[in-house]
């Protein structure tokens, strides 16, 4: 059966891997929350600093999952892991910054413009991991387990063997990031509506 074998949640003040808090935000720090995680975890990928918030979120969450289990993606060929991501705000945060660059900053910034598409994070993960598999980014009103469940049936029927799902909602109003890996195993946390919804909310209460 299809099971959720690993997951990561980035909340406003905490980062959790498989439900365990692994980093807490330092309210006194001048660094952004994502930069704090990057530094605390001693990650080394200088391109991180150039990424927009969606790509930073996808990068951090997937790297934290790898850190908890370094062999997590090792069982698959380079085109067998499908990336299925979604959010509600598309790339609005970066869109706003790009617009600011030409309305108030003198001229349009090419390095911001290339991130004004929500699917760029999929490209960043593909580049980092050398993944040549299926990609999908949808813009949905809210986190909807059914979207991932339905699309996973399509992907598993057409050659993908694992699915890295993601919900990346990072705006001025909040941080709601959830990545999860779905694989075929004999036992484990079944990949269904209820479990996905439950895991997506890990750490949500602690944030308030």
């Amino acid at each position: 059966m299809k099971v959720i074998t690993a997951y990561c949640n980035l909340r406003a003040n905490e980062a959790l891997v498989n439900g365990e808090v692994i980093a807490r935000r330092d309210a006194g720090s001048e660094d952004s929350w994502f930069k704090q995680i990057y530094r605390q975890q001693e990650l080394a990928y200088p391109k991180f600093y150039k990424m927009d918030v969606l790509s930073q979120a996808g990068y951090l969450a997937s790297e934290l999952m790898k850190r908890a289990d370094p062999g997590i993606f090792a069982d698959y060929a380079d085109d067998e892991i499908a990336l299925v991501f979604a959010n509600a705000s598309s790339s609005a945060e970066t869109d706003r910054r790009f617009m600011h660059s030409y309305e108030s900053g003198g001229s349009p910034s090419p390095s911001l413009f290339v991130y004004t598409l929500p699917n760029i994070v999929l490209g960043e993960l593909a580049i980092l991991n050398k993944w040549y598999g299926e990609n999908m980014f949808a813009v949905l009103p809210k986190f909807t387990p059914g979207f991932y469940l339905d699309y996973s049936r399509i992907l598993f029927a057409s050659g993908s063997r694992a699915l890295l799902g993601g919900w990346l909602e990072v705006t001025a109003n909040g941080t709601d990031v959830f990545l999860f890996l779905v694989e075929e195993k004999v036992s484990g946390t079944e990949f269904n509506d209820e479990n996905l919804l439950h895991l997506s909310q890990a750490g949500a209460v602690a944030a308030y």
Partner: protein
Amino acid sequence: MIYIGAEVIVSPLGDSAEDNWNALRENRSGIALVPSAGFNQEDIHLSKIAGLNGPLRFQQLVIKALSALKERIDASMLASDRTIVLISSTKGALDDNLHDQFSQTCAAVKQQFHLAHLPMVISNACISGVLALNMAGNMVEIGQYEHVIVIGCDAASDFVLYGFQSLFAVSDKPCAPFDAARNGITLGEGCGAALVSASKSVFNNTPLQLLAGASANDANHISGPSRTGEGLVRSVSRTMQRHGTGTDEVDFICAHGTGTVFNDEMEAIAFDRLALSDKPLNSLKGYFGHTLGAAGVIETAVCMQMMRNGMLIKSLGYRDAGTSKPLNVILENQPKELRTILKTASGFGGGNASLMIRSL
């Protein structure tokens, strides 16, 4: 069998697939020089729809296309629980609401057409349209829905134009895909729509067959095309494998062909690796400009019109070979019976997608 039909194109060349076909047959382009459109007030070539101004342009286009599609199908299926609408787009209603680019349009469309489900938005840069058609085919194939309407739409905006200007990627003449003197894209706006269905009887006119395909990432660069065409090669290979299609069965390729030096070169390398470089091929960007999230749907609709009319449309703007691997870019319209067309798309984020359309 998965059917596709009731295609609609709303572009500077007309409001229906037939109007657009008539323009394409005469090799008319929607591209014109727009004075002072650029960031530094430069004159810029754009493919813009006359009369499409003011607020809610994205919503207007989507509703116009869906209204036209409704006339070509058994309209009672619109309200069915077994029907869903997919909207493929990059920037949606960005000019209306930067922070929420899609939900107002989705709600308006649901209400106006009495849909059972809110439309779902697919946003994967320039492969959005082909990806949404593939998703539609797959949804129907595994029985999630019986009917899936795909609407690809993007409206022109200063935002996107200034962005491509900052990349020095905007052509100083109408774009010339695959040509030796190509030097960038021409942006366009438009909307394409088609119905993908398990049922042949919902179409007023005979549909065609959709052979849904695969997507593949280049794993190379977020904005630069791959130097090896790896993602496009994998996407097309997997699409053909899935349907047991041999290279000898592909009659024509409707390529992505944006008109940038590196994209078109990448495609030539990929088609060479796929042993498809002798196939007649065009890019439709010389007619519509690059319509981003709409391109895959508009161009697939043109493929369907080419099949229905038994005619290949020449690749406008192409004169001299300009890629390191040869391509059979067609220089004149040609009558031809078409059984199978391959449609490809590639885009930012390293995405590549492909599908095939087959005559019944």
